[in-house]
């Protein structure tokens, strides 16, 4: 048995994909991290204290993993969903009743999204309570705050897509806040000064109209499925890279 495994791992095919064999000694254990694209996000070695479950509680890693799960389930949902006012809601019904595994995929996407909001907040709490934003990690904290905002925006834009009563009114309430922006919102202080009205304020720009309608649906869809995930991926890349460049996970001085 082990003979076959050995031959596969030493064969041309395996080596062409993984570049190194299964690590056996210390040197190859360091190499496997350096020579693999995905593992290369990691440092080769970490402080033993950083591995303790009760230090990070894996919260950053779980946030990142939930993002991956959301991408997978989200792509699945995109196969069946059309962001058009007349269709979106019936597509949701189809996903729940007709599409194979549709119901569980939608539930997974929904609960993973709520879960990610929670784990990102808890991750921030862990970083704050361990003082892990101290130099040289200040800027990675700033990137983290941007990631928190992005996570909330991702969740918020997704909230509209089912086009049910819950979605419609939650987004109506939420986007009404944009009308309160001073000067630039039609309900905000000093909006008269700039000649801002209901059909040319920031809320109008956000919704593509004076109320939540077809234009808002397509805007939220594109933001949710393309623009915000792209920004999030880039920021996460920088975030992970900075964790390494700042000397790995923080530890007692």
């Amino acid at each position, binding site marked *: 048995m082990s003979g076959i495994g050995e031959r596969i791992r030493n064969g041309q095919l395996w080596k062409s994909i993984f570049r190194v064999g299964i690590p056996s000694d210390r040197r190859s*254990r360091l190499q496997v991290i350096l020579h693999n694209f995905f593992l290369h996000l*990691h*440092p080769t070695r970490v*402080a033993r204290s950083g591995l303790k479950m009760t230090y990070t509680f894996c919260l950053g890693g779980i946030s990142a993993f939930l993002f991956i799960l959301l991408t997978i389930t989200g792509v699945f949902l995109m196969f069946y969903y059309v962001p058009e006012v007349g269709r979106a809601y019936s597509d949701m*019904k189809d996903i729940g009743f007709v599409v194979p595994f549709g119901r569980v995929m939608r539930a997974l996407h929904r609960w993973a999204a709520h879960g990610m909001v929670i784990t990102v907040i808890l991750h921030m709490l862990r970083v704050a309570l*361990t003082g892990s934003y101290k130099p040289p990690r200040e800027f990675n904290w700033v990137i983290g705050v941007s990631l928190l905002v992005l996570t909330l925006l991702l969740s918020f834009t997704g909230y509209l897509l089912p086009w049910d009563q819950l979605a419609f009114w939650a987004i109506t309430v939420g986007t009404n806040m944009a009308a309160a922006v001073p000067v630039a919102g039609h309900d905000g202080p000093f909006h008269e000064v700039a000649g801002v009205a209901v059909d040319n304020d920031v809320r109008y720009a956000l919704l593509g109209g004076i109320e939540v309608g077809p234009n808002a649906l397509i805007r939220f869809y594109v933001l949710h499925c393309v623009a915000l995930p792209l920004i999030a991926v880039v920021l996460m890349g920088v975030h992970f890279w900075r964790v390494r460049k700042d000397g790995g996970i923080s530890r007692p001085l």
Partner: protein
Amino acid sequence: MAESPVRSEGAAREGDRSGTASVPMVEVWPNLVFIELVAMVLVTAGLVAFSLVVEAPLEGMADPGYTPAVAKAPWYFVGLQELLVYFDPWIAGVMVPGIIIVGLMAIPYLDRNPAGTGRYAFRQRPLAWIAFLSGMALWFGLIAIGEFARGPHWAWYWPGESWDVQKPAQPPSWDLPLGWGIAAVGSYLAAGLALPAVLFPAFRRQLGTVRYLLAMSLLLGLFSIPLKILLRLVFGIHYVVATDWFNI
């Protein structure tokens, strides 16, 4: 690449005094990779199990003509929605979230206390812990009120209380006279900025005047929110300062 596997991730900048040489290090493979794998499997299993049992909600189709009894934002924004009870929309919905985001980003540049880094050390950094935990408690307290204690017209309904009972959207309340209000806010700010500097001069000196004033303003802003809520809910004070342009 000229990356030496052992030292390459070392201290990147001067500020990091935790050089790699002195701390016990372990290989990422298999130590960390294994933990990550276990975490991924557990999270996936838990989520799949949960999703098989609990369906994602789907109500009736969106109908702009039919307003539900109460429209609530997604839970993470319900705290801001609850703030609308106590503050003007541009304060609750624009200024407060804006200050929260900028204030969060500013934390590393304001908290310069090097003690207690890299572990959960309340004793070494009590102020940072109290400030951060207060902010979180406020956020989630407001979410809990908005989610569970608000009914039609955003009136207060205890969890389980019937929404059929009619309630006035806002119980009767009164504004402080303008002079009193300005005096109250002024003394809150003056006392809040001056007292800590007088009581803990070393603390102010360590921070420097600019950092001290910024940090204290953020803290005073944070604590003014529960204070205002208490004034409203307990004493029925609608606005402390009521003017034609803004109310607080």
